[in-house]
């Protein structure tokens, strides 16, 4: 379990080794402060949505899951994409309302990023990976949290580098996104050095 957690943060980092959530990753990494806000929001959404999607998939969509309703030979697995999209969009909406009601300060800090995360491929991607790798409920909770933390870590570090990069004199055409891609590539190399790190 700890191994899975560690692996989902570093070795299988969603942003840097599976390229998920790249649009958001590049768009909101100009400042460390906003990047951190998005990162924390993603941890929360990811930590809730992956186990939630697991429950839904295991009880309704997986082959034979509807045996309790007398439809044991039904396989609704093909509906998972559209279901996950709906769940994540709805969850983001509910989370926003709950935060607005009970934690206005947190809502003010995270609110603007939440709708952005509704169609982030990191979230949908993690849920699809969860199905593909047959995680149990506990594993999927750990996986959701781990990938969220890994993504947040990557975007915060990336934003910090980009802030510094602004003071560098880079060739005209490479400024901005070109340099950002190359920095992400070098960071990805750094993260791949974590491959094989495991607890004894």
């Amino acid at each position, binding site marked *: 379990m700890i191994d899975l957690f560690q692996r989902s943060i570093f070795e299988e980092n969603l942003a840097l080794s599976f390229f998920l959530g790249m649009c958001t990753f590049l768009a909101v990494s100009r400042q460390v402060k906003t990047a951190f806000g998005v990162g924390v929001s993603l941890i929360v959404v990811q930590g809730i949505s992956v186990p939630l999607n697991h429950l839904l998939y295991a009880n309704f969509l997986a082959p034979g899951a509807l045996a309790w309703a007398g439809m044991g030979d039904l396989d609704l697995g093909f509906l998972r994409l559209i279901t996950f*999209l709906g769940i994540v969009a709805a969850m983001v909406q509910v989370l926003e309302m709950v935060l607005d009601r009970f934690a206005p300060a947190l809502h003010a800090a995270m609110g603007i990023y939440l709708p952005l995360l509704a169609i982030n491929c990191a979230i949908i991607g993690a849920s699809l990976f969860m199905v593909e790798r047959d995680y149990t409920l506990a594993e999927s909770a750990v996986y959701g949290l781990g990938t969220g933390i890994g993504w947040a870590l990557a975007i915060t570090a990336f934003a910090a580098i980009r802030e510094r990069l602004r003071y560098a004199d880079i060739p005209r055409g490479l400024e901005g996104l070109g340099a950002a891609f190359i920095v992400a590539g070098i960071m*990805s190399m750094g993260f791949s050095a974590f491959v094989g790190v495991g607890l004894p």
Partner: protein
Amino acid sequence: MKPALKQIADPLVDKNPVAVHILGICSALAVTTSMSTALTMSVALTVVLVLAAGIISAIRAHVPSQIRIIVQLTIIATLVILADQLLQAFAYEMSQRLTVFVSLIATNCIVLGRTEAYAMRNPPLPSMLDGLGNGLGYSLVLMVVAAIRELFGAGSLFGVQVLATQAEGGWFVPLRLMLLAPSAFIIIGLLVWAMRVWRPRLAEPREFALRRPGKEARP
């Protein structure tokens, strides 16, 4: 140039969705380890994009603007599921290699971006042409990146050996790095650089100018 032709040609270079607008990067990076996966992905995305643009623009007058995003998402997701099922039925091996990335066409910013920005405001035919152009622009970048990665990473193109590798008695030592994640980022970064040197007006405006000793700040 005829307007229809221009609509297809524009997104290839000047308004390229990947290299200029930086949309749909996730899959562009992930499926480019070999040209055959990149080609499959490009075809799947282009077909989904053209059909989604056509359908959405055909019903655009009947969709209330408050729920338009969810309507678009549902249509796109349905088309993506169809594409995924077709791949699983007729090209099972390929769908195993693409894993979740076919499904992730649904959250690809290019599709939602084009339907939201173009298809919601234009009649079906121009929308489909616009979808086709953007799909081709995406495919172009994917094929270029995949060609570089496969050629230098494995010495082959479309699985056909082009450079004789050392393992088979040739001279070429495959660069393993090319098949790993970092190279994809770096190649796209260099591609963006090349595009901006070629078409300087695509470069981003400076956030602030550098001050050089003895010179005025550059604009």
